[in-house]
């Protein structure tokens, strides 16, 4: 009926680049508080909803459950525990990662939403859910108000 074309470039085609190379993301009101506290004071902030007794890490300006406005920022500390993790052996381009990268969700206490970050200073086979970890930050002079100001989380001694 109709021959099958497997590659778009086998027939008349146009190649191009969409103009999406100047991407700017401002962190917003709550993000500004979170990242400046991280950069200047080396603190991890959360936003607490008194009505739901829930702490959002990183902070939000509205509670996702009751839609109330969140104005109470709390220092949740740098210690947390692993809620979930994954060990990546390949990068986005499909090339082998040696050593593998470990991503985990870290919770900073009961009724606290977890933060996604890297794990370090640990063998992949030693990680377990519930493992206690602490944040390793860049030295203050190198911090620029980005999530990479936290280098990784490592097991507490």
């Amino acid at each position, binding site marked *: *009926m*109709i*021959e099958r*074309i497997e590659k*778009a*470039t*086998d*027939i*008349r*085609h*146009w*190649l*191009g*680049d*969409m*103009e*999406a*190379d*100047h*991407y*700017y*993301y*401002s*962190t917003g*009101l709550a*993000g*500004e508080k979170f*990242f*400046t506290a991280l*950069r200047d004071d080396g603190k991890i902030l959360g936003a607490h909803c008194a009505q739901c007794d829930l702490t959002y890490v990183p902070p939000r*300006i509205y509670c996702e459950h009751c839609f109330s*406005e969140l104005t109470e920022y709390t220092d949740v500390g740098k210690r947390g525990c692993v809620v979930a993790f994954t060990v990546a052996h390949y990068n986005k381009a499909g090339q082998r990662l040696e050593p593998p990268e470990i991503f985990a969700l870290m919770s900073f206490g009961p009724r606290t939403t977890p933060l996604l970050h890297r794990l370090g200073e640990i063998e992949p086979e030693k990680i377990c859910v519930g493992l206690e970890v602490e944040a390793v930050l860049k030295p203050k002079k190198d911090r620029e*108000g*980005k999530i990479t100001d936290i280098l990784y989380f490592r097991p507490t001694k």
Partner: protein
Amino acid sequence: MSKSQKFGPPLNPRGQRLRAQDLESITHVRAKVPAKYAWAAGTAMSRFLEELKNGKIIGRKCAHCDRVLVPPRMFCERCFKPTTEWVYLPGTAVVETFSISYIDTNANRIQEPILVGTVAFDGAPPHCGIMHYFGEVKPEELKIGMPVEPVWKPQEERVGSVLDIKYFRPRKK
């Protein structure tokens, strides 16, 4: 009346208007998003564009509804059936709609208007066709239903693009 009198206070009082000079002082992320694409013309359209190089208009016939589709499609969107046959058309057409534009493609005002519109090819059903330019005609003479013919670029300049036709001009009686 000022904007705020007219529309009331802003809906999100916690929001802050950012100026260009603020963009560096607030926390932010800059990134490059790779967004490469390959857009393929498809089987039918590829043939259509190739035939333009030869100075010919080609369509696809649907055996079920007896229509000739120009630009060609491999599938009839009315019958949901594959089209069956390639058909060459004479290339002559009639004006379906047109627009006299005093604004160019960069939105600049221009003195001499650009004449654009759709043409329906003879041999194909009315109300379907392609968009193109009109030339060798005064804006006030352009009419819906006017018989037109394509003016081709010289063969050696044709690349298999719809712009291998320079424009459509009124047909001499």
